[in-house]
């Protein structure tokens, strides 16, 4: 195994994916090395496959929609859970204040 092949490997892979020339320091080597050329061809094939993978899709779990929507429902439930006690508390406080004001009002002397 040629050390130069190993050093050139990342540049060969990049050039194959990008469709560009191999970086200058390794260009001459790749032109004369069948192993590197084979790697370049193999990686170009891989690059085409990776690009084609963008159009294929994995099937999401069947319960994904349910999981998302029930999480949102949960968020709303939390939001509702503090609103009701706060509204009730505010109503009770204002009633107490009204009674206090009414009881403490100055009365006309008879």
């Amino acid at each position, binding site marked *: 195994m040629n050390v130069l092949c190993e050093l050139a490997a990342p540049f060969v892979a990049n050039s194959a*994916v990008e469709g560009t020339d191999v970086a200058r320091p390794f260009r001459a080597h790749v032109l004369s090395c069948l192993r590197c050329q084979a790697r370049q061809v193999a990686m170009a094939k*891989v690059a085409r*496959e990776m690009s084609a*993978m963008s159009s*294929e899709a994995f099937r999401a779990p069947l319960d994904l929609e349910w999981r998302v929507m029930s999480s949102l429902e949960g968020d709303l439930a939390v939001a509702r859970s503090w609103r009701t006690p706060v509204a009730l508390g505010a109503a009770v406080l204002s009633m107490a204040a009204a009674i206090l004001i009414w009881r403490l009002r100055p009365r006309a002397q008879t």
Partner: protein
Amino acid sequence: MDVSKVEREKEQELISRAQSGDRAAFAALVREHGNEVYTLARRLVGDPHLAADVAQETLIRAWKALPNFRGDAALSTWLHRITVNTAWTHKKRARRHGGLSLDEVAESEAPMSAEHPEMAGEILELRGRLRSALDALPEAQRQVVVLKDVYDWSHAEIAEAMGISVSATKVRLHRARARLARYLEASA
């Protein structure tokens, strides 16, 4: 009027309704984009169960952020960005809690298009090996190579979504491709 225009208008209407709080409209968007979000999550994190969690959290984040969606980019592009961010957050969380390594090779799971009989055996075999090789890459490298070579994002887009510099994305991509080539060569 062409079909894609009709679909775009229909989607735009669903987005507007969802932005004003209509959960049924959002559920329709989840049905429309669920597979796409899950697919990206699956490719980014490798593990199908974790991918399902990432997809779920992505869509919940999308619901919360939807009022701020202005439509400058397509909804799918916007969802992709949220998916990348969410996958990244999950990765950090998993590391912090000492959970399972995300680089563990996931169980074999074929994408839907692999069911197509017209795909040549050689291509199917190459895709299988490619998927395994991608899953075997370290997380950070896998994310960059998936976004660049599968989804054709620019370095700037990847850098922004992952919160790293453009030069870091280039270095990771360079290493990832070299490693990918080695894996594939070894598995041939």
